[in-house]
């Protein structure tokens, strides 16, 4: 029997319960869902502050972390989060698994399930790969980043960090600038959705070669709200409340989209000089890993206005919240 079933308050009004089985992108989340993730993250931060930051909530749940791409912070963050909830964690790096022998994604996912995984955290270089995994996997799939498409846990930890940093905890009307290579960025795509959904005045800024296709999206709007796309960094940074710099991947030079790293740094690098145009209490973010001296100057990264370290810490708490919420939705119930 269930514990203390005589308490009526759980049935009363308040936050709506979670009903998603998978988290593949943020576009399935309602404002109420996002609010529940944020509240649950608050509770997880309280756990992280304890002498023993561990609770038995996911005891007996097996979490497999399957990464087809290199990663430090996201993979370790998910692993620490799962262990803090007492889940059993299995790590698979695709490079050293049967994937290198030619095993297909579907076969790998079926194998992982047969080995007892209840939840699958997955990163894959192909956009949409986690959707395929979710079709064959009997438990919950959590997208840890797929191609250029989505990185939901990153967008949610960025949102959590911003809400705890901005006065009043609200993004409504705040000028938020995403600076850099939006074209190849799943972090940008997921953030565009959550930030506009929360009412931010969103600006995407970078060289025009790295913003192709965004103008149309900006006009149509994400989450029902339009945003601004520009290559004019001075206009973008003017009176900004938040600036999020994105990593420039060196392989973009080879494809001719950027002339050189030095030219990018000169024209779009986030420096103290440029930040003067923003609000005095501007919040500086970066999803990591950083190329210091390219998209962000080393002194800006460690400036008191930077929340880059807080993003990493909050990453663990947000991922604990997501694992906890998703673990409650069993197969056969409301999907997606």
């Amino acid at each position: 029997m269930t514990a203390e079933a005589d308490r009526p308050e759980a049935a009363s009004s308040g936050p709506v319960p979670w009903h998603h089985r998978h988290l593949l992108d943020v576009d399935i989340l309602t404002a109420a869902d996002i609010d529940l993730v944020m509240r649950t993250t608050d509770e997880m931060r309280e756990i992280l502050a304890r002498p023993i930051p561990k609770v038995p909530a996911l005891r007996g749940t097996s979490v497999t972390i399957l990464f087809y791409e290199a990663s430090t912070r996201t993979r370790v963050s998910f692993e620490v989060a799962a262990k803090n909830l007492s889940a059993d964690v299995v790590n698979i790096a695709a490079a050293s698994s049967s994937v290198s022998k030619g095993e297909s994604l579907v076969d790998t996912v079926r194998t992982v399930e047969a080995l007892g995984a209840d939840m699958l955290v997955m990163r894959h270089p192909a956009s949409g790969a986690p959707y395929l995994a979710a079709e064959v996997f009997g438990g919950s799939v959590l997208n840890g980043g797929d191609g250029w498409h989505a990185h939901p846990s990153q967008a949610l930890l960025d949102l959590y960090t911003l809400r705890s940093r901005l006065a009043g905890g609200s993004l409504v009307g705040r000028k938020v600038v995403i600076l850099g290579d939006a074209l190849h960025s799943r972090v940008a795509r997921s953030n565009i959705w959550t930030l506009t959904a929360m009412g931010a005045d969103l600006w995407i800024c970078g060289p025009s070669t790295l913003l192709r296709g965004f103008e149309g999206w900006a006009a149509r709007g994400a989450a029902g709200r339009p945003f601004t796309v520009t290559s004019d960094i001075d206009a973008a940074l003017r009176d900004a409340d938040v600036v999020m710099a994105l990593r420039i991947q060196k392989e973009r030079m080879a494809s001719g989209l950027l002339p050189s790293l030095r030219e990018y740094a000169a024209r779009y690098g986030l420096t103290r000089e440029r930040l003067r145009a923003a609000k005095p209490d501007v919040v500086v973010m970066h999803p990591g890993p950083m190329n210091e001296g390219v998209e962000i100057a080393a002194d800006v990264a460690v400036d008191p206005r930077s929340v880059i370290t807080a993003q990493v810490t909050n990453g663990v708490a947000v991922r604990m919240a997501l694992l906890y919420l998703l673990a409650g939705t069993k197969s056969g119930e409301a999907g997606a």
Partner: protein
Amino acid sequence: MTGRRIMAGEDVRRATIRISHEIVEKQAGTEGLVLIGIQRRGVPLAHRIAEAILENEGVEVPVGALDITFYRDDLSLVAQQPIVKGTAIGFDLNGRTVVLVDDVLYTGRTIRAAMDALIDFGRPQAIRLAVLVDRGHRELPIRADHVGKNVPTSREEIVKVLLEETDGEDAVEIERSVAVRASGGTVA
């Protein structure tokens, strides 16, 4: 539907004051004493007991709040993850006498979870239990040290504690359950 009223506001007040006296008597003072209310109605009750101790002894006893959701033994059985209501223990538990405060003692499973949670915060010198209502039907070897009222019930009945802070008035009612037990969803 309103059930049969077994305690009125005045009864709740007297029981709370008596419990506060018992707690101090058992501890032979207030040295090392802390109160921790279990979410949700244990929290306002713990604050009321602390107020009564302040009035009678002139000592402010620290009060914390504990949410036992992550320690429940039925998390893998419930249909959806319960919404967590918040833990706030802003003091060290090592060597303290912790009095857990809850509204209703029933199966004892909440208290088992609460004790597991407390041990993660430190090593209290002792853990005691104060409840407003003990309705019996224990499923674990747990008993309360301080009880506002012992109420014999059947398993089909629901004991509802109402508090000013959460429900707008103080009272304890018993009603006949129809669906709550079967749904399994109304646990906290």
